[in-house]
């Protein structure tokens, strides 16, 4: 009896340039145990032939660490935003649909431009001033309980899942999304970073800031690092409201 060869079928949404129209192509690759989406895309790259035998340009995507740390391979897999490197074929329903995260500008195929998030991080001043603005001396000690929270938030890899899943982030709105907002909280927790707390809260009060949150809470559902985004957004809401009262009454 001839052995039935197991295969994996992909339906991939492709796009040749940032402005051209998207189209889909179907690919079939041989199955092997522990296969994930990135490894499958590598298989397609080796032999870029569609299911109906047409030779095409290999599918473009971005990946880097291959262990859910860098965030680069975020794409929409079977309708949900997630990391391709930890999307195991065994756990996915076939045919597997791959699409770029269209909340961001598409460069080509599954490759997107996530620089808008880095601009947002600049906007909320997601860093600690160590440029000699003030004396640091010995590094100040951080409350270990606060450090646990900071450690959790610092796992954020700016992958953009939370922005892709959020109904309020996209070309129709100016909301910066959960990830950059919550990074402001991370640096507000830092013993030196908290000196600039007011600046960050005022930045979050600006256009496209935290008021853009509509509490759909998709961010916390899709976050691959399980950061309690909605909890920190609620804390930031508290802080921003207090800051607003200060702005009104203390000046």
């Amino acid at each position: 009896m001839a052995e039935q060869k197991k295969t994996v079928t992909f339906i991939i949404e492709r796009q040749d340039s940032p402005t051209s129209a998207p189209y889909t192509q179907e690919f079939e690759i041989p199955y092997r145990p522990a296969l994930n989406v990135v490894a499958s895309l590598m298989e397609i790259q080796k032999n870029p032939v569609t299911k109906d035998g047409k030779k095409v340009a290999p599918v473009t995507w971005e990946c880097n660490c291959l262990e859910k740390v860098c965030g680069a391979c975020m794409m929409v897999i079977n309708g949900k935003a997630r990391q391709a490197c930890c999307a195991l074929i065994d756990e996915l329903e076939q045919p597997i649909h791959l699409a770029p995260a269209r909340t961001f500008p598409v460069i080509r195929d599954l490759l997107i431009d996530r620089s808008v998030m880095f601009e947002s991080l600049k906007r909320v001043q997601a860093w600690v001033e160590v440029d000699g603005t003030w004396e640091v001396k010995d590094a100040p000690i951080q409350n270990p309980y606060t450090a646990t929270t900071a450690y959790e938030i610092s796992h954020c890899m700016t992958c953009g899942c939370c922005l892709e899943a959020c109904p309020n982030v996209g070309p129709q709105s100016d909301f910066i999304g959960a990830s950059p907002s919550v990074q402001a909280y991370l640096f507000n927790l830092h013993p030196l970073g908290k000196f600039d707390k007011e600046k960050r809260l005022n930045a979050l009060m600006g256009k496209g800031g935290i008021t853009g949150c509509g509490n759909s809470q998709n961010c916390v559902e899709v976050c691959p690092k399980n950061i309690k985004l909605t909890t920190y957004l609620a804390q930031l809401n508290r802080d921003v409201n207090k800051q607003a009262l200060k702005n009104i009454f203390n000046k």
Partner: protein
Amino acid sequence: MINVSFYLRRLHSLCGLLLLGGVLIEHLLTNASAMGGPEVFNQGLEMMELIPAPIFLAIEICLYAVPILFHGIYGIVIALDAKNNTGSYGYSRNWKFALQRYTAWYMVAFLIWHVGYLRIYLKGIMGEHISYALVQSVLSNPAVFVLYALGMFAAIFHFCNGITTFCMTWGIAKGPRAQRVVDKMAMGLCALMCLLTLAFMFSYLA
């Protein structure tokens, strides 16, 4: 920096929960008194008519018309910021997020009809006296009855889910457990208010 959109959003939230929530509860209680029969309902309306007309009009404008117009018009701006995606992300909170917007759109149409016909046309222009008999005649049309029931359900859901999002937006319920409890309590209140609505609406038909 003035941050206009921040203050508008917060005002939208306060106005919705406190003022329009009050309007909804006032409507529920007044109409619930119809279950006591026409006399009780009409007595309640007569009590309201004891308020001198200019003061009553001022209350209607300040506590009803202006908050509804502000909440409605700015609400449309907010609703247009969203691209509902319950198809891909069918989580309970995401559904409520989408429903908050769907009910809002229904309310826009419903309120134009409800206020336009009952308050502006019948009471304002025709000088009709609002009474048990009038409400009964309006609700005797089955299509109107269904559209009114839907209008009430939409307003009640929008208000109750608004309590949950208010608690998040103002940082009152922060952790997942607190938010879950508020959500469940608000949905419980929603069910109770919907049942009360059905009870008084059917009492008009009986």
